[in-house]
């Protein structure tokens, strides 16, 4: 997919594909415009020099094939956050035929900044003035012809929301691609810096004669940029490091000014002069309710509580739709048992599982009718179809979580929530934005891990992905509820078991993220708060739909096949052994036959190690093996082993003491993320090594903590007169 070096001039005609890159500040409606233009048919691909997959879509206008690349929204090209790094790497390593920079027409002075910066580097830059509908309502006028003359490019007014102006935009894009319109690099006067810019420019021209960007721009970036950006530029264009730093030092010593401050200020000065007298705006009056809402969000403590309330209500709705939880438990406790059951029966997960059990019955009886052996029938229905069902049953949840995510972002609420919780999270090396994945994680870790895409800082994102599996998800809650009920019928002891495990998990989450950000990344505190507060918008259904659809499909593609394969392997481990296939009829007659399976065999090998934490029994280990696939698998494994469906009774029959049951609960909630979560970690951090690291770290922590609790309890409980 490289298109770095297509130096020969293209003759427009059928079959040619032109590359157009979309960029701009965050919050200017870029994604929604991208979806408008591509019709929502979005793909991901690798681009030369860029480490992250970028979205692209294809379209054809007047017979010209256009491939549109969606670059992430960014403010600058420094190494500060992921988005900026991606945009910088793209610009330095790729040469699209045209850049389209999206600006917010109602905040042109700030949002035109990246367009001006690009125009210094590259001649073909088209500027889109988005939010034309809002500008019209506010009686805001921009003298577009005058700006087009000054910048020698097109400025096109559009409304990504209503679709107004898109036809004109496509015509103008094609004008550039066919060569009917030729852009020109702009030149901003940097005053006293000019001689130094000139010296660098000459050096760049001689060391990198076929450079695809304006040498003057590279010179300016060298002066303006931080150490990292300078290093990247020097390496990319093969420049002489000593010479570059000599010029920079000369400039700093001769002029005694802060170079980046001077350059950015000059650029904004250019923009002010450019726009002065060309924008007519009646004074902006913000609605009272917006001011009131912002005041509330920014109040210490109260703002944080308000944010948590919004998130709580949001997730309550999502998780209730998905599994009935937690509304079913609340309804059950206040006496509406039948309503609670109905909520569970008609939840999305139940409907999906109903569909798959019907499907597997149908397939099973058909295979039976054509005399397929029981082993293969069950391999297909219990192994394969159940695996497919597991993948599919995650889709509604992933989709709903992304709907809420894009709703919060689109309305501008996400920024406010992040701001209100920033101080609390900063102590643990995180920013306020990391609340969202954590809250999602309490329902299910998988979409929680995927939701870290909203975080700006790469290191913070890794820290959250790494520590998130400690957050006890709903599946773990179900197992914990069953175990704590099996430990005792005393509600006080039940509550103690449950709460102590939740506290332990949250503590481990916080300690792990603190350790990572502080020890590994050397960040003393989380990032200082600096964000743009976008105006409140009503959400656009179209945008929510596209955003959520894209991320759900991406999850399906990345995680689906792995989950499927491992679920088949798990089924084989549990249902076959050295003696061959262990049939269901044998198991039904004698649950102890499971002892001959490979899974039990592995359990017996691990028995001496697990014995040190009181879990030497192969049945406990087999349950934990099943929990690796999905945490609720612990319950079904215990049910199969004992031949009893009621999980509380089953846990009592498995032959563990109360203390051992508690240790089982501790170990189960920490020991490893479930398989789909591991797959999500792999897909987000990009490497199996990282996923492996997370699993090993959690296994070690789980073992250590279980060991400590077990040893203390073994000594302490008899002293207190409590039987173990």
């Amino acid at each position, binding site marked *: 997919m490289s298109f770095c070096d297509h130096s020969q001039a293209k003759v427009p005609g059928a079959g040619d594909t032109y590359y157009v890159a979309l960029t701009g500040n965050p919050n200017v409606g870029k994604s929604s415009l991208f979806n408008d233009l591509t019709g929502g048919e979005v793909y991901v691909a690798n681009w030369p020099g860029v480490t992250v997959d970028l979205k692209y879509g294809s379209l054809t206008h007047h017979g010209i094939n256009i491939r549109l690349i969606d670059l992430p929204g960014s403010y600058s090209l420094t190494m500060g956050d992921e988005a900026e790094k991606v945009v910088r790497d793209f610009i330095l390593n790729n040469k699209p035929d045209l850049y389209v920079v999206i600006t917010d027409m109602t905040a042109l002075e700030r949002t035109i900044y990246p367009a001006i910066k690009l125009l210094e580097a590259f001649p073909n830059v088209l500027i889109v003035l988005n939010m034309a509908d809002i500008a019209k309502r506010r009686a805001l006028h921009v003298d577009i012809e005058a700006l087009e003359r000054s910048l020698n490019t097109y400025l096109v007014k559009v409304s990504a929301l209503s679709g107004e102006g898109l036809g004109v935009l496509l015509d103008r894009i094609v004008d550039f691609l066919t060569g009917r319109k030729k852009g020109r690099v702009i030149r901003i006067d940097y005053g006293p810096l000019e001689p130094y810019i000139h010296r660098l420019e000459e050096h760049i021209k001689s060391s990198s004669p076929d450079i695809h960007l304006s040498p003057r721009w590279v010179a300016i970036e060298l002066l303006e940029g*931080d150490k990292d950006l300078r290093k990247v530029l020097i390496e990319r264009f093969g420049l002489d490091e000593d010479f570059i730093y000599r010029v920079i030092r000369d400039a700093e010593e001769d002029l005694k000014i802060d170079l980046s401050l001077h350059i950015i200020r000059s650029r904004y000065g250019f923009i002010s002069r450019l726009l002065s007298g060309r924008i007519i705006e009646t004074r902006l009056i913000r609605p009272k309710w917006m001011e009131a809402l912002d005041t509330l969000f920014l109040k210490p403590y109260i703002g944080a509580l308000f944010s948590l309330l919004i998130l709580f209500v949001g997730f309550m709705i999502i998780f209730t739709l998905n599994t009935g939880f937690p509304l079913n438990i609340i309804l059950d406790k206040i006496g509406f048992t039948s309503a609670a059951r109905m909520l569970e029966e008609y939840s999305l997960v139940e409907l999906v599982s109903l569909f798959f059990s019907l499907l597997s019955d149908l397939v099973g009886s058909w295979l039976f009718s054509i005399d397929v052996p029981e082993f293969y029938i069950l391999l297909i229905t219990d192994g394969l179809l159940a695996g497919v069902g597991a993948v599919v049953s995650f889709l509604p949840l992933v989709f709903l979580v992304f709907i809420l995510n894009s709703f919060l972002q689109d309305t501008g609420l996400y*920024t406010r929530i992040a701001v209100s919780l920033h101080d609390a999270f900063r102590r643990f090396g995180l920013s306020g934005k990391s609340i969202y994945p954590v809250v999602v994680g309490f329902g299910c870790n998988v979409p929680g891990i995927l939701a870290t895409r909203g975080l700006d800082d790469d290191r913070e994102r890794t820290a959250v992905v790494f520590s998130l599996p400690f957050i006890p998800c709903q599946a773990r809650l179900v197992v914990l509820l069953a175990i704590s009920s099996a430990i005792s019928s005393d509600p006080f002891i039940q509550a103690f078991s449950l709460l102590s495990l939740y506290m332990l998990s949250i503590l481990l989450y916080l300690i792990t993220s603190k350790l990572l950000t502080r020890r590994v990344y050397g960040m003393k505190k989380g990032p200082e708060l600096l964000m743009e*507060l976008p105006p409140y918008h009503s959400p656009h259904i179209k945008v929510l739909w596209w955003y959520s659809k894209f991320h759900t499909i991406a999850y399906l593609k990345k995680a689906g096949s792995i989950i499927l394969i491992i679920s088949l392997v798990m089924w084989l481990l549990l249902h076959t052994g050295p003696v061959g296939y262990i049939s269901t009829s044998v198991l039904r007659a004698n649950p102890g036959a499971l002892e001959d399976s490979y899974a039990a065999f592995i359990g017996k090998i691990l028995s001496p190690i697990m014995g040190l934490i009181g879990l030497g029994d192969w049945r406990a280990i087999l349950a934990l093996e099943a929990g690796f696939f999905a945490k609720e698998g612990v319950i079904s494994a215990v049910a199969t082993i004992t031949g009893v469906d009621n999980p509380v009774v089953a846990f009592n029959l498995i032959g563990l003491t109360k203390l051992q049951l508690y240790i089982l609960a501790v170990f189960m909630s920490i020991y490893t993320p479930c398989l789909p979560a591991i797959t999500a970690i792999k897909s987000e951090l990009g490497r199996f090594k990282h996923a492996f690291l997370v699993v090993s770290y959690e296994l070690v922590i789980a073992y250590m903590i279980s060991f400590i609790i077990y040893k203390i309890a073994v000594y302490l409980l008899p002293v207190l007169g409590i039987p173990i």
Partner: protein
Amino acid sequence: MDKTLLFRAGCREMASRMSLADVPQGRRIRVVDIEGGGYRIQKILDMGLTPGVEAFVRQNRFKGPIVVDVRGVSLVIGRDFAEGILVELL
């Protein structure tokens, strides 16, 4: 007003200059200087809060973050960070 801060910033007229963190809400200001270095400074400059620019302090409750309207957008800035932004009242 923090005198050491003004001294460090090396400004000549001490009269109306103060840290952004100390500006009461509802006042117009002009940015004089931004202390420190590195990525955060570069980012706030790129976001439009450059020396010389006029801005409006939309919210400052002397606890928690500060909201500043500048170049047509609202920025929310943490208190620690705002301490290092030197402004004059208009």
